[in-house]
């Protein structure tokens, strides 16, 4: 029953703008650089009002942790999925708790209020 309700809601809500970031619990692996670990994240943009997402890595107190990626501001076109590699120093890995993406909005966007969406995956 719930499955049908969920499907109907998904169809009705098909017009809405969405942001998705996976996996929920990423696992780090050794990269090709000694002492650097990496994980692959996937960002899906179904927000037609957003083109850029900011990538951030935090510890469990929401302090920023230095990381490397192809770009910290990721351009993802509408309905596009983009894979992003996040590289972290091996000694920092014990502190890494959250990997987040947050939508970035242009100052001249047409609406009075704007909804910024942020999704954070957790490293366990």
């Amino acid at each position, binding site marked *: 029953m719930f499955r049908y309700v*969920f499907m109907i809601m998904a169809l009705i809500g098909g017009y809405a*703008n*969405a942001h998705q970031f996976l996996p929920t619990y990423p696992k780090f692996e050794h990269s090709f650089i000694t002492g650097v670990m990496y994980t692959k994240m996937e960002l899906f943009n179904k927000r037609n*009002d957003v083109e850029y997402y900011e990538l951030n890595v935090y510890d469990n107190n929401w302090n920023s942790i230095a990381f490397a990626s192809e770009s910290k501001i990721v351009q993802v076109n509408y309905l596009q999925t983009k894979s992003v590699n996040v590289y972290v120093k091996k000694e920092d890995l014990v502190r890494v708790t959250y990997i987040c993406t947050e939508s970035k909005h242009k*100052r001249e966007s047409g609406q*009075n209020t*704007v*909804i910024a969406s*942020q999704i954070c995956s957790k490293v366990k």
Partner: protein
Amino acid sequence: MLKKIVLASLVAVPLLSIAQDVPITGTVSSKCIIYTETAGVYGNPSPSILSTLPADGGVQPVIRYDVLQSGYYKAVISTPNTFSSSPTLPDSVTWTGSVDVSRVTNAAMSAYSTNKVTYNNTTEIVLSVPGSVWFKAESKAEYGYNKAFPAGTYRAMVTASCIAI
């Protein structure tokens, strides 16, 4: 005799080849999707007030969260405490805001209204029931002491986060 053997082997070979297991695999993974349903508009019921309440001529921002499994994510919604763009404001702005459940797909989600944790301008709700839930935010800005907001366009940001727990 030879014909029978050939025929029997021709029949047997396909039988052997179709007697294989066809594996079906599936992965169920948790995920959270944030939908921005309505961006919201500030109404201007009096010169010193900007409000998203419908009674004040505004439109409330609506955010939908979809979670596929329970207990993997929490929703964190922050109402504005500053304008992201506005004319120059020499006086102070007093902000108030709130977040509440608007629609649910599962009756158990109605508990979100009572189980939410609110601090400063932020509301946290553990998404403990799978399905879709809509939250509506209310934001109100009052300028100075009954002072009129300068003419211009005002924009503010509601931040909707989905954080893995």
